[in-house]
């Protein structure tokens, strides 16, 4: 079992992930968000590691409870490392998170990744235990 800390006083649980692409790697803060179907990362971070939008990128739309609207693209990264596990060739949605510029959030760790963990979340103590 491994234990990861998050701040129980924040409005949202935050974790961090290491994203690796052909041009390098960036560690960034993501919301632990089981309500998000596919992991989404600010498109400018993906550009930084060489995984920005390409002519052959699959274009998609991000749909939420308030309706559809945010355009995005799907890109494979070399790997995504989070919570002690590495996911090679993970497909990530690149989203322009500019409208959340004041939130300090660079993306959402989605259910596609979260579902692969056996975990226990202690909200009051801010501990995420991964088995």
């Amino acid at each position, binding site marked *: 079992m491994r234990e*990861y800390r*998050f701040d129980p*006083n924040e409005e949202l649980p935050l974790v961090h992930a290491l994203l690796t692409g052909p041009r390098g*790697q*960036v*560690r*960034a803060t993501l919301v632990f968000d089981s309500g998000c179907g596919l992991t989404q990362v600010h498109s400018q971070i993906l550009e930084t590691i060489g995984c920005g939008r390409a002519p052959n990128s699959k274009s*998609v739309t*991000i749909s939420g409870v308030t309706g559809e609207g945010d355009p995005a693209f799907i890109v494979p990264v070399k790997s995504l490392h989070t919570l002690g596990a590495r996911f090679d060739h993970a497909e990530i949605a690149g989203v322009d998170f500019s409208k959340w510029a*004041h939130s300090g959030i660079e993306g959402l760790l989605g259910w596609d990744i979260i579902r692969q963990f056996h975990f226990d979340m202690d909200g009051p103590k801010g501990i995420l235990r991964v088995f």
Partner: protein
Amino acid sequence: MTTKLTWDEITKLYNKEYVELTNYDWPDEEIHPRSGVVRVHSSDRAEFYKQVGKDTPVDSAIVFVGKLALPKDVIFSPGLRRVVANHA
């Protein structure tokens, strides 16, 4: 700047700013990095990424310093987002 700072020093100097750290120490289990060299910082995220895009290092960490800065009276609700394929 090439001085390696502790997280406490970073929070005092760059509160409410985005920072890009190189030569950082950030154990998987911890919420915040322990230390790092601040290469780029700005309170304006667009400006921050403009600077990050110049001479980008091969290994860095991007961090917002401070607590989430959601606007007053706004409830942030990123959940329940799914990806829908676009059809030609």
